[in-house]
């Protein structure tokens, strides 16, 4: 039997000892994060030692190269929209990492890359990412500073600006990766109307249906955070994906076990034990 009173006393004592350095009510969250970090380091170490980590084919990510290739063939620019959130949003920061890969590819193919941004800090990051991507490709001259454009800090003004670029400069490929809100469908439909091949990705689940409806390829939820691992096959990044999979399996098993236990105990009354519950359910 679980000693509830003893456990509460122990937790109170722990709280007194740790207070105020650690908020004991957040200890389970801290424990989960440390566990996640431990699994991540374990998976990364294995990946770096050469253990093969398979990664399933993601059509949306394969389509990135296809989209850039199409732009190159048509002699038209690639438009990269990094979402509308600030750099403190992890999706925006991740979008900068993907931008570096896209910039490397466009520099290799000699294709123009246009990056309109909504936030001035994101603009500084985007400039660095594009510059670095061009250097990675061995084409530092491919970086055109005027193609990383700050449009507006306002959502729909930015949206109108991007729609204007789609209509006037006619990019052959629109890559929209990052955090999007209500403007997602306006951008995706304008891009569709302009005839561009469109690859979109976000972890914001409310905007996913719009991208699925209007874009050629959509990178959904967790796939978004696998982009750099998928494109570079870097062992460290692959290890992170493996860690997420391991944690996901643990969570799925916990959900199933929890659901079964909750179902069994839903009818439990005082004095019931496992035997009576089993007999009531299956007897």
């Amino acid at each position: 039997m679980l000693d509830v009173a003893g456990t509460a006393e122990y937790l109170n004592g722990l709280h007194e000892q740790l207070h105020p350095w650690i908020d004991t009510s957040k200890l389970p969250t801290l424990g989960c994060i440390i566990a996640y970090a431990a699994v991540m380091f374990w998976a990364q170490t294995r990946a770096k030692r050469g253990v093969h980590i398979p990664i399933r084919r993601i059509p949306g990510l394969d389509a990135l190269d296809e989209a850039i290739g199409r732009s190159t063939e048509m002699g038209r620019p690639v438009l990269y929209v990094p979402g509308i959130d600030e750099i403190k949003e992890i999706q925006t920061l991740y979008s900068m990492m993907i931008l570096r890969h896209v910039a490397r590819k466009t520099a290799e193919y000699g294709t123009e890359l246009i990056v309109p941004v909504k936030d001035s800090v994101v603009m500084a990051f985007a400039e660095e990412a594009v510059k670095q991507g061009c250097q990675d490709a061995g084409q530092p001259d491919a970086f055109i500073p005027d193609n990383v454009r700050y449009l507006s800090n306002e959502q729909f003004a930015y949206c109108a600006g991007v729609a204007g670029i789609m209509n006037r400069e006619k990019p052959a490929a629109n890559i929209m990766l990052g955090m999007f809100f209500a403007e997602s469908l306006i951008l995706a439909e304008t891009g569709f109307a302009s005839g561009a091949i469109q690859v979109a990705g976000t972890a914001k689940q409310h905007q996913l249906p719009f991208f699925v409806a209007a874009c050629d390829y959509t990178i959904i939820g967790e796939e978004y955070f696998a982009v750099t691992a998928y494109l570079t096959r870097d062992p460290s990044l692959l290890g992170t994906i493996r860690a997420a999979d391991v944690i996901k399996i643990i969570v799925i098993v916990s959900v199933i076990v929890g659901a079964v236990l909750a179902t069994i105990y839903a009818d439990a009354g005082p004095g019931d034990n496992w035997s009576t519950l089993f007999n009531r359910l299956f007897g």
Partner: protein
Amino acid sequence: MKREIPILLTVLCGLAITWAFFSQAEVSKAVNAELLSWAIIFFSVAFLLGISNLVRISLKQISSGHPDRIYKVVLLISLLGYLGVGIAEIHGLIDPVATGTTDSAGQVVFNDSAYQDWIYFRIYLPLQATMFSLLAFYIASAAFRAFRARSFEALLLLMAGAIVMLGQVPLGDTLTFDLASRWQDFLMKYINAAGQRAIIMGAAFGTLATGLRIVLGIERSYLSE
């Protein structure tokens, strides 16, 4: 050092903010507040970078006779005009009594009658609403394409969409003898919620992993080399 110092700063700031989340110590809250103040200052300064980028590119396109130069002229007039009106009103160069109201302390209170607010409420907001209202048409055109039953998955989507739409309106419910609202309820509560939660969970793990990699200094690709 050009790369190590930013990584060190990232790790230190990340750990300090993480500590502030998990701690109730006054010092952690003070460090967190200080870092956030610095962030606000950085963001404000960076705003000037954005404006300089906008003005530089616009002037270049105007001077080179770019086909879009007329839009750039409108943009610059709007930007500088609104900025000028704002500065003039704040410094009392425009008669505040004629354009706004003053409170008991003699401070200008901007309202709809002030030039600055007039421009915002009478020009900017309607333009913003116009952009937003385009969504209605785009939803219709996107739905038209998405609901074409060209594959089994598209057929499922069409059926689910039709059931949810019928279940949302009283007429649809009457026509289907109350079945539409019950099926809609089932679809939204179980199928849709399960799918959304799976996406949220996957995204949350990805976010956590990326956050950990940045805070611990493992992820460095966002920095130049």
